[in-house]
């Protein structure tokens, strides 16, 4: 589903991705963890070309994302993105946020889009908030709407960029619960997160990124109980000892 080969990315003189190779199969749930500045968010953003790359290839569902002839707008609908800061459209209701893509990009008739939009909002537990603007929603509710918005285009992959990092602790659970639901439906997912519990229970594979490279990847069981790379062990130690 996703095939990344020898991906390099520089911001000026700073090399943030130093040759990433990563294959993700359809239906697989991959969690990327690592210290800040390790390049994990940048890697994720390269999977729907929110970043330009320096060299390498990124292939999503058979389409070379960085090839000149690729219709980027169409490919982007195949990869739904959930942002740390939600990025809901503040001047639209929750429902309108969800149906904008289907109506404008997929050309779904409004009635049909609204029906599906309400269904999605129901799925994330927010059908009663359909006609409310984002400023009247809590952080957790905003992020659930954002997930519904991304799902509305029926993407083949869902990308989560630290989806719970901007949330108050008591709101993290409701967002993770929605994400687990998406996992259960068999969605291919790439999740950058600091939620180790989520990684342990939901991931098929955990990737540890450090200083622009994939330092270690393994099944969650092996990864957490038996880390091979000393940097992984050090990072896990720090995370566990968090108050």
């Amino acid at each position: 589903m996703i095939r990344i080969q020898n991906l390099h990315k520089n911001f000026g003189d700073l090399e943030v991705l130093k040759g990433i190779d990563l294959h993700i199969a359809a239906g697989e749930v991959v969690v990327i963890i690592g210290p800040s500045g390790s390049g994990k968010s940048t890697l994720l953003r390269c999977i729907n070309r929110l970043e330009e790359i320096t060299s390498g290839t990124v292939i999503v569902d058979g389409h070379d994302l960085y090839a000149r002839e690729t219709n980027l707008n169409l490919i982007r609908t195949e990869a739904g993105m959930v942002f740390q800061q939600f990025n809901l459209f503040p001047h639209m209701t929750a429902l309108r946020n969800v149906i904008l893509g289907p109506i404008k990009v997929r050309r779904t008739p409004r009635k049909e889009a609204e029906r599906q939009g309400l269904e999605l909002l129901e799925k994330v537990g927010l059908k009663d908030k359909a006609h409310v603007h984002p400023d009247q929603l809590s952080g957790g509710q905003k992020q659930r709407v954002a997930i519904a918005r991304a799902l509305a285009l029926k993407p083949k992959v869902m990308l989560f960029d630290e989806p719970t990092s901007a949330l108050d602790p008591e709101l993290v659970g409701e967002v993770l619960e929605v994400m687990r639901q998406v996992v259960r439906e068999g969605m291919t997912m790439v999740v950058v997160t600091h939620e180790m519990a989520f990684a342990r229970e939901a991931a098929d594979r955990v990737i540890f990124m450090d200083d622009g490279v994939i330092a270690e990847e393994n099944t969650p069981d092996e990864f957490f109980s038996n880390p091979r790379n000393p940097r992984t062990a050090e990072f896990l130690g720090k995370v566990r000892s968090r108050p």
Partner: protein
Amino acid sequence: MGFDFKYSVIWESVPVLLTGVKLTILITFFGLLIGFFLGTVFGLGKTSRNRVIYGLASAYVESIRGTPLMVQVMFLYFGLPMVLGMRVPPFAAGISAIAINSGAYIAEIVRGAVQSIDRGQVEAGRSIGLTHVQCLLYIIWPQAFKRMIPPLGNQFIISLKDTSLLVVIGVGELTRTGQEIIAVNFRAFEVWLTVALMYLALTLTLSRVLNFTERRLEIKT
């Protein structure tokens, strides 16, 4: 001293002045309408990453902001016809001057508002497959427009008052009408006072309309 304030002068001059008010309103309205269009085009141009587009937009804004409106008006009306070989009617020249002048300031307002919208908004739009133009239309513009209203209101009021400079090309707007009345009756105090009050009435009405619009948008979104 013995200045003798004559109310009758005011009553007599009001009907004539109102014809000037009418022209002032017309010039302001069409000038700003075109000015808003120019401002939008060049303001968006200034947000462009294309160097040529950015350069053209900047050149327009800087050259207009950097020269006096009075000079622009006279250049348009007296200067250009020498090259074009035809005279522009004063009314059209007046509207053009207000349009071109306000357009430069409005361009800066548009640029500022558009660039104040969080980058994440475009990223979210792009991530659901919207094109650049769709992002601008459905996501950036509605949010930016709301932020533009207070500075736009300011510019509208400035442009309305700027129409008084069109006396130099003989457009029969409010100030010119006042001048003409005084040329006949020499009652400068009463007439200029009346003219000033009429401008004040116009600008106050304009602020009211803009405040109302702002509140309407607040409720709607």
